[in-house]
């Protein structure tokens, strides 16, 4: 009965724990290092630039991979946000646009 729903392979558990530990080390590691470095105005500016830089670096490859339809949806989201500053409307509009574009075969 090794395949019962509530069993777990010992090697797999080890793999999961290692992955979780490594990921936690990354989650906490950057924070820890910054506690040991002086936060100069330059470092602060760099950290403040991170959110935008991470969004751009995350979203751009998704657009490059997803093509025109995904790109258009994100333009819709950004445009709605510029006008209304309501994230949930922006997200809903983008999802609706994606559903529509795909139904149209784009």
């Amino acid at each position: 009965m090794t395949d019962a729903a509530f069993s777990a392979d010992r090697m797999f558990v080890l793999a999961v724990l290692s992955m979780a530990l490594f990921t936690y080390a990354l989650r906490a590691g950057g924070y820890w290092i910054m506690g040991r470095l002086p936060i100069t105005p330059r470092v602060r500016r760099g950290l403040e630039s991170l959110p935008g830089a991470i969004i751009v670096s995350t979203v751009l490859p998704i657009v490059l991979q997803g093509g025109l339809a995904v790109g258009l949806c994100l333009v819709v989201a950004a445009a709605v946000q510029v006008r209304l500053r309501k994230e949930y409307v922006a997200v809903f509009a983008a999802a609706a646009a994606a559903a529509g574009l795909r139904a149209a075969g784009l």
Partner: protein
Amino acid sequence: MPEKNVTLSLKGCVRGAMMCVPVFPGIIALGAVFGTVAAQKGLTFLETLMINSLVFAGASQFVAMEVYDDPLTWGTLVAMVGVTGAVNMRMLLIGASLRPWLGKVPAYKTYPALYLLTDLNWLLALSEYGKGERDWGIYLGSGLIVWSVWSLSVIPGYFAGSLISDPKAFGLDVVLPAFFAALLVPLWKGRRQTVSWLAAGVVAALTWYLVGGYWSIFTGALAGAFAGAYLDD
């Protein structure tokens, strides 16, 4: 500029959690797809719950499942841990950027809370920080709700793989990127952001073309941070 005190309140936690509601469909769809992938790969239910809730890092879980093979050898195990680390390398940076805020909170509170760090609750929290918010319940509450929704969403996907047969048809795959794009809008202040985002975009696109995978997030983020840091007003 007088610095406000860093606080933690239940009200802040609830507000942080509520801010995540628009992306629930995206999280649930992604979690359900992961459950389906895990079931197809032959993971037991318990194994699926473990990897999903303990690792708690969507993209890296998918990549690790690409590498996974049954029976699991030491070589595969090391490869799974390696790709997880590569995909999650950006967390070093996003964790670092929380220091000016959470650094004022005792370590015994922040280090457990950093377990809940994801791009999503980090972006939400920092965009509130930019507006002057200092209640770190925004971060904690959003982290807890995202973890809970993510942990539960895998269950229907595991047992009913075809529940959402094609998330794309409903536009569910654009929910998270669209949310990120929306969060980007209020972050723009002027020339520093323009330059920083261009640097991030160029480096991320180049990395994506040349190397592929998830390295582009890390390299693009670093490029954008350096550009922002070295552009003097």
